[in-house]
């Protein structure tokens, strides 16, 4: 297992290098610079600013010095927010986005697995159709629709919950977490139902039933473990997706997380910020994929004991 992890981490280096290089080139070739403004900016001001951020150097030199900084864990200063470093901005947003992602994930897993298992117990009955139709709806409904809808109902008409913010007013974390988690809950529900149906029809389940084991024990102890494998495989990328894809929810609910910085940085041509965030998210995705693969190996005896363990 350790060898497997070390190998995967080594493989991550070239992947990250490609990500950095491609982003660096794309960012610098995008029209419009970080210092362009509606009011004409005098040439001498542009010159002074470019010198300060070393943008007056040849591109390859900027690239090399940037790589050097990254190796030292320094993402550089933000262009848009003078005086703040990219590290500082990421550090400010990450705990919030991570917390939001965690709640969304909890909601997704709890609701998704419960619904999926529940539906799989009586396939093709009302008990199956209702949660699965809801799941279909959840997958189809984008967060920019679900979010405002929840806000209208619970925030404006019922006045139960705040319509925006994060940790400012009690209860303001509920709607964003549900909005972000809903689509994932729906997906997890469908995944777990499918796999549960397959597992429940296997011989060892029939054996268990024949032995007269109580049904809840069969489901939880024997079926669920196998039934969760695809869900676990999905969790890694899903969590990275939750972190990286939270910008819509963060914008709707005015949450000061990473996603909002990412979008703003792109609009502002904040080169260092875009690069820093991209590298950060790329690393997260790599890490979470690795973790979910390791978890999947641990869950699946075939992979744990067979030759599959060496496979990436």
């Amino acid at each position, binding site marked *: 297992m350790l060898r497997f992890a070390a190998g995967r981490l080594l493989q991550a280096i070239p992947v990250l290098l490609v990500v950095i290089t491609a982003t660096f080139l794309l960012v610098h070739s995008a029209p419009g610079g970080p210092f*362009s*403004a509606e009011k004409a900016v005098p040439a001498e*001001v542009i010159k002074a600013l470019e010198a300060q951020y070393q943008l007056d150097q040849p591109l390859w030199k900027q690239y090399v010095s940037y790589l050097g900084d990254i190796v030292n864990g320094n993402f550089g200063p933000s262009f848009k927010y003078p005086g703040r470093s990219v590290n500082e901005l990421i550090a400010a947003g990450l705990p919030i986005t991570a917390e939001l992602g965690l709640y969304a994930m909890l909601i997704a897993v709890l609701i998704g697995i419960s619904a999926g298992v529940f539906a799989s117990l009586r396939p093709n009955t009302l008990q199956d159709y209702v949660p699965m139709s809801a799941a279909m709806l959840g997958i189809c409904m984008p967060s920019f629709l679900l979010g405002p809808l929840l806000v209208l109902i619970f925030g404006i008409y019922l006045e139960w919950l705040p319509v925006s*913010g994060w940790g400012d007013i009690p209860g303001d974390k509920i709607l964003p977490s549900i909005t972000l988690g809903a689509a994932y809950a729906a997906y997890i529900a469908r995944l777990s139902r499918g796999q549960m149906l397959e597992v429940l029809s296997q011989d060892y389940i029939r054996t268990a039933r024949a032995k007269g084991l109580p049904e809840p024990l069969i489901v*939880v102890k024997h079926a669920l473990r196998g039934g969760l494998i695809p869900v676990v495989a999905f969790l890694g990328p899903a969590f990275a997706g939750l972190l990286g894809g939270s910008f819509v929810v963060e914008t709707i609910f005015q949450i*000061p997380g990473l996603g*909002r910085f990412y979008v703003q940085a792109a609009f502002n041509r904040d080169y260092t910020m875009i690069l820093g965030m991209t590298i950060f998210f790329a690393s997260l995705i790599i890490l979470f994929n690795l973790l979910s693969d390791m978890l999947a190996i641990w869950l699946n005896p075939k992979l744990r004991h067979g030759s599959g363990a060496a496979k990436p």
Partner: protein
Amino acid sequence: MKQTIPPPLRSASVLTVCLLGFALGACGSGENRVTAGNRDGVLHWGNASEPQGLDPHIATGVPEHKIIMALMEGLVLKDTTTLEPIPGVAKRWEISDDGLVYTFYLRENARWSNGDPHNAHDYVWSWWRALQPALGNLYAYMYFPIKNAQAYYEGKISDFDQVGVKALDDFTLQVSLNDPTPYFLQLLDHYSLFPVHRPTIEKFGAPDERGTRWTFEGNLVGNGAFQLEEWKINRYVRVGRNPYYWGAGDVKLNQIYFYPTENITTEERMFRAGQLHYTYEVPVDKVAVYQEKGSGELQIYPYLGSYFYRFNTRVEHLSDRRVRRALAMAVDRQQITDQVLKAGQVPSYAVTPPDTMGYFPESDLTFDPDKARALLTEAGYPDGAGFPKTEILYNTSEEHRKVAVAIQQMWKQYLNIDVTLLNQEWKVYLDSETNMDYEISRASWIGDYVDPNNFLDMWLCNGGNNRTGWCNPEYDRLVLEAAPKASSHEERLEIFKTAEKMLLADMPVLPIYIYTSKHLINPAIRNFPKNILNQPSFKDIYLDPSAARVAEAH
């Protein structure tokens, strides 16, 4: 076969419901942020975006402007209703008969927010700092009416003593100008001319260094009615009363929260849910809803800003002024403001908004499709025949798109010409416009100060904001030389009228409408001025809880 929900799943669901219930219960106190704020004197202000920085010599945006106006103050303030200059840090001033020398007498009781004495030397040092090229001050041109300021900024002289600002003693500041500048006192209320606290700046870096941490929470020292208490990135900036402010006894609010509300639909929902007293904007499709509701929360009033299209006069068919005038005459502005925008905007036929310091532009431009067709025929395109492919460029925005579509249809209907629309993301659009890589482009200009000069000096031959390729040396002479030398206010306005007529006769710009400020404002907010600069005076604003209750009862 008995099938039930497995116990662990069941308990998990119960847990979720409990958690939700707990959170719901926790928020059931019944009092929202605005109600609590009305009681405690805390204003919740929608402020559009996260401030880039609060250094008055670097900042350029309106959100930054609002916060800086609470934290700092200039020599002179504006009466928020009449916009006439009123005493700020300077308790009075004298202007020499030739209008060239201003002497300011500063308040002896003015203090920085850390209690340090605040005097005339602060201004000399601050203005020296603001004119350091390395600082990258985009508003350096606001200093150019001051004698030798431009020469110093451009490196033509290196001795700052030659620049027209001197501290005669601790509390007397003398400023000499190049020409009599009627709007000079107004400039002093612009944050780019605000004083900064020297020891604080020097503590965190060199005076001309950009982006030091001197403006951050715990560091910033200002001289305004409020001081910086907390700055949570992308969450809020909170300011509270400054006990050392010279007029601290008259300040009514205890605190102000500035929220970065860049999503205006969320902002509107926050207002509805009692989380904001004031919104920075109102979504276009909500204007009618609030108008119908008639609650008085929607406030619309004129704004010193012009919305227009630029013509690229270097494009062959647009280099013909007859074509430009024909296009301008075939735009039904009334229909655009009444049917498309519907928020009180005023159709405009000139660049400068009317009644800018008593100035009313004279324009012969009207909506006249017949004359437009005749002009187009004269230019060689009878009934639009052979009119080259033309494109309207605008930056991505629903409002800009609607206006462009309306104009596209009008030109088809009245001139029988086809134009295409191109929208670009903000920075790409800026690049296209600055490089004159466009044919017709949407644009706007918001006044920094109330004077026609602010709208007319952008069309100078080498003006960085011209971007049309239009150049008329006689126009330059009028704006740069004749107007500053005018012997009276009336004569000066006449010269501007002549210049603007020249501009409109050639029409490198197509005026469309004058902006309005639109906000949702809680009825508890009192002393809120509706001026054309949309500039509030936070030290005068107060909250009246009874007004909010009366409004609710209705």
